[in-house]
């Protein structure tokens, strides 16, 4: 009975029951519920109640065109897709009805109809498997993962690397920097009184006997005359400072004679 709803709609003069009309109108009003023209065609094809492979595409085209006619009559806005499909189905219908034109190189009406049937069947099949997929047991609904996953503790070890080349380049960089540094008053050959004092303070505790202060010159400062002069002056000044602090005694037997130093008796360092 549903079979002829659309035929009835197509042939306006045909009788149609109230129920049929209501069903047809429900279909049209529900046009938004369809996922496009192919979906609508699939729905329409179900009314044929046959295997989709054996469906009458001609019949289906008529149903679809009737649907579009009816929608127009109801002044329903139809998406362009539906109208494109309508135009194409009208073309297909004419191809199927007219004897093939031997001049025509394009696909035959049968080919086009077969492909449409294939599309419908494929869509129906995808709908079916989609439903089967969703009916499967699902994680978080039917089966569950571990409730308290124990986090894997990440132990990150940082390893620093350097190559021999890095090392050599690093050293070369320092040395190059020294060679080409901007000119400054060179302090390398200057032994300051502060340095001497610090040195002397450490040594004075051992100076029980009178000792020439030149023996207190730091290592490496007694050969180069420039360095020696600086170190001697600094050491002498430092010695005077220690005397002033009451920690040492100084003596000189004669002009230009060696200056001798010793710890001041009775004092501990």
């Amino acid at each position, binding site marked *: 009975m549903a079979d002829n709803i659309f035929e009835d709609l197509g042939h306006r003069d045909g009788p149609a029951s109230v129920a049929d009309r209501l069903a047809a109108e429900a279909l049209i009003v529900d046009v938004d519920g369809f*996922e496009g023209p192919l979906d609508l065609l699939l729905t329409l094809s179900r009314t044929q109640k046959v295997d989709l492979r054996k469906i009458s595409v001609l019949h289906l085209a008529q149903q679809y065109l009737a649907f579009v006619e009816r929608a127009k009559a109801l002044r329903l806005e139809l998406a362009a897709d539906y109208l494109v499909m309508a135009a194409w189905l009208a073309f297909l219908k004419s191809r199927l009805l007219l004897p093939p034109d031997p001049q025509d190189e394009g696909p035959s009406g049968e080919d086009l109809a077969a492909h449409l049937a294939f599309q419908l069947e494929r869509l129906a099949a*995808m709908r079916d498997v989609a439903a089967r997929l969703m009916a499967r047991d699902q994680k*978080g609904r039917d089966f569950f993962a571990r409730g308290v996953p124990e986090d894997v503790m990440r132990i990150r070890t940082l390893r620093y690397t350097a190559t021999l080349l890095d090392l050599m380049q690093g050293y070369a960089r320092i040395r190059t920097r020294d060679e080409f540094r901007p000119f400054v008053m060179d302090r390398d050959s200057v032994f300051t009184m502060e340095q001497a004092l610090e040195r002397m303070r450490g040594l004075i505790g051992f100076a029980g006997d009178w000792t020439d202060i030149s023996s207190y010159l730091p290592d490496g400062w007694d050969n180069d005359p420039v360095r020696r002069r600086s170190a001697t002056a600094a050491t002498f000044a430092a010695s005077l400072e220690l005397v002033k602090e009451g920690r040492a005694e100084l003596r000189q037997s004669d002009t230009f004679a060696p200056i001798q130093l010793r710890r001041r008796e009775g004092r501990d360092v």
Partner: protein
Amino acid sequence: MSEPDDMPEAEDLPEDEEQSLFDAPPMGEQERMVEAILFATAEPVTVRDLEARMPHGCDAAEALVHLRKRYSGRGVHLVKVGDAWAMRTAPDLGFLMQKETVETRKLSRAAIETLAIIAYHQPVTRAEIEEIRGVSVSRGTVDQLLEMEWIRFGRRKMTPGRPVTFVVTEAFLDHFGLESARDLPGLKELRAAGLLDNRPSPAAMPQLGEGEEPEDEAGAGQSELFED
């Protein structure tokens, strides 16, 4: 230079000596280890990752065979998900787990169909999905599936325009309890019926769902995705 990792000494050793140095634990122990690791992890773990965490010389694949047997029929199962393995509660006990049930976002009909088409036809382009459904695929639908990590981008098709393709993910398999995409319900029947063939439509067919398509957009996005 002797990076501690290299351990050239160990590798230079004759086979048998090496064996004795790195004696793998007995299989029973290996099974316990796999059990512990899988229990501790909610995500499936590959054999490779298992072995990376186990002592040298372990055979995780064999341990998994024993473990699977041990847990068959139990309240918790060992399941295979793609290349990886996971422990999951037995589906028949889902009714006990109302408290744990996670409300998943309800998928629209369009999203469900799109997902099914991707799963059964993968790798599949957006144009092909639209061909099958007869409507354009909205960006939101694809985005939702991507966001759920049920689909991801596959490699580009070697056809003009090099369109991107979509494939389903391991998370999809995990969610639906599938070992692989080959186990999708009805896949064989669909294939036998030729419904998974890529049949080009004869010339004069209307190209549904195209037109002002986000296709190009997606294409543009894709190149970004893969270009670096």
